[in-house]
């Protein structure tokens, strides 16, 4: 019952996002052919507009778009003659997803580890070192970190390829560059949450059982401390796997990220809508998965909709 209700809300959410995006998008001045207006005769422009249904009144355009959306057809790309939006996503998403998943794994693994180490050495050297690293990770933007990584690992030491996409080696530097900031954020979340948990009475109970410090941290600490991190993973996952403009640009990766930005500059209406709807679908699904994983981690949380 919960799942059915939840799925319905998810569909409504995506529809609302699509509608709002449509309204906002149409209220930006300009159109996809603004730069062609000086070159092409008026009749040709009108013909092109008619081809993409841009000559019709807005409600009709909206209705046509929604109709196509119901059949999972995101429409043609105005910029690209040969590929429609579905193909763009089908080509770019797997690349972005691999990159994003790798970064997520790095960020989680090292972020959680760093946070635990910091918490267990509260106010001692290791804590300060870990939090210093975290602050650097948060404050150094990826467009600075990425060129630095390229300079040393690719150019000077020639360990990894400079850019582009192909083998697994190509994915290492961009994954690290992309993972740094979320890793630092996760480390800080995990530290404060772990500090909180290690002060709880049930940790004293565990100590009184004579358990070793490692057993106490692993069995009683981490599981209770990880909930706030899980909350953060949902949106992070959606952002990472749908591609990021900066990293993909710097490393010349043929992912999905660049379409988010390029399409807006070009007023490529179907691509704007398509990428937004795609992103929100992924986001809504991950949030749903996160809610389910809460239940698995914390037995006190019950998944019920209001009124159940």
């Amino acid at each position, binding site marked *: 019952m919960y799942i059915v209700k939840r799925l319905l809300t998810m569909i409504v959410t995506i529809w609302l996002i699509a509608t709002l995006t449509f309204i906002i998008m149409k209220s930006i001045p300009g159109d996809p052919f603004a730069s062609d207006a000086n070159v092409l005769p008026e009749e040709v422009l009108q013909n092109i507009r008619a081809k993409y249904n841009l000559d019709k009144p807005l409600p009709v355009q909206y209705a046509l778009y929604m109709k196509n959306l119901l059949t999972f057809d995101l429409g043609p790309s105005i910029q690209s003659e040969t590929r429609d939006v579905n193909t763009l996503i089908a080509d770019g998403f797997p690349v972005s997803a691999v990159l994003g998943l790798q970064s997520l794994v790095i960020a989680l693994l090292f972020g959680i580890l760093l946070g635990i180490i910091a918490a267990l050495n509260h106010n001692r050297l290791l804590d300060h070192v870990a939090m210093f690293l975290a602050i650097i990770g948060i404050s150094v933007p990826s467009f600075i970190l990425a060129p630095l990584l390229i300079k040393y690992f690719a150019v000077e030491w020639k360990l990894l390829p400079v850019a582009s996409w192909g083998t697994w080696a190509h994915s290492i530097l961009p994954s690290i560059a992309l993972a740094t900031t979320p890793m630092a954020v996760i480390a800080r979340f995990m530290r404060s949450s772990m500090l909180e948990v290690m002060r709880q009475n*049930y940790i004293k109970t565990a100590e009184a059982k004579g358990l070793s410090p490692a057993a106490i941290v692993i069995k009683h600490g981490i599981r209770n401390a990880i909930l706030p991190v899980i909350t953060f993973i949902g949106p992070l996952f959606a952002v990472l796997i749908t591609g990021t403009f900066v990293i993909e640009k710097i490393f010349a990766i043929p992912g999905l990220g660049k379409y988010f930005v390029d399409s807006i500059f070009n007023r490529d209406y179907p691509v704007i809508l398509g990428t937004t709807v795609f992103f929100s679908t992924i986001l809504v699904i991950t949030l749903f998965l996160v809610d389910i994983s809460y239940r698995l981690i914390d037995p006190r949380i019950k998944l019920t909709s209001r009124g159940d």
Partner: protein
Amino acid sequence: MSHLLEVEHLKVTFPTYGGEVQAVRDVSFYVDQGEVVAIVGESGSGKTVTVQTIMGLIPTKNIKDGNIRFNGKEILHLSKKEMRKLKGSEIGMVFQDPMTSLNPTMKIGKQIAEGIRKHQKLSKAEAKQKAIELLRLVGIPNAEERYHQYPHEFSGGMRQRVVIAIALACNPKLLIADEPTTALDVTIQAQILDLMKDLQKKMEMSIILITHDLGVVAEMAQRVIVMYGGTVVETGTVFDIFENPKHPYTWGLLRSIPNLHDKEKKRLIPIEGSPPDLFSPPKGCPFAPRCPYAMEICVEKSPAEFHISNGHTARCWLNDPRAPKVEAFIAAGRE
């Protein structure tokens, strides 16, 4: 005959931003095999710190002085690893608040079996069987089903039973109960105390019971330790303490118990004032500022330990033969 537990001249301090808190200052007492000893005293008197030190829950750097002998063996300077062998097997502990003493994300059965597996060479299945037996022992119905439930599915009283089961998992010689009933409803309190009394007889263990409730003391304990300002001010058998108390603080405690059988309505009688500042404890008797009988010497010199009768001691200058005689019960506290 040697005692099961002997605490001698224990001193524990905690560094804070405001200075060093001297939480426990020269505390000595003993507990014999099969005996229930109550520690009473107001909040901040050092009761909990004392028992947590015995349990090895206080970092060794905070323990400034003293000896703790358990079963004839010095345990204060044991390595952490050796101490862990003792904790949960020979000494068990029941905490104050059952609502927060259990891990909310672990099945309660596992929380019991965990300690058993740590100390006894048992298989998973055997440990589970033992945990279920323990659940039955502490009076939890449907133990087999309850084994698989989480703490939030238990009421406060039931949780405290689980906490007791954890503490008893390896048949400890000594059970330390730090205000085990304070967080519970009055009706449940009686059940938990009955259970502890019952188990104490069955398992022939000793109990150190920390409580604020003198009714509980009379019900459960054979001997009483009265603590104030980080020191033991009076100790003796339950009869000594209730019938022949020799310290004005003990008089105050006894007088502050409401009496149901009073014919006329009376106000409760508090002990005026507040406990001493443990950042800079007074050089004399810590109770002197609140004591209606304080003499000059009380402020100047820490009282010696006066032996009233066999096993009954009090740290109060009033017990010196040169001190003026005072009528204990009538004059203690202020009307």
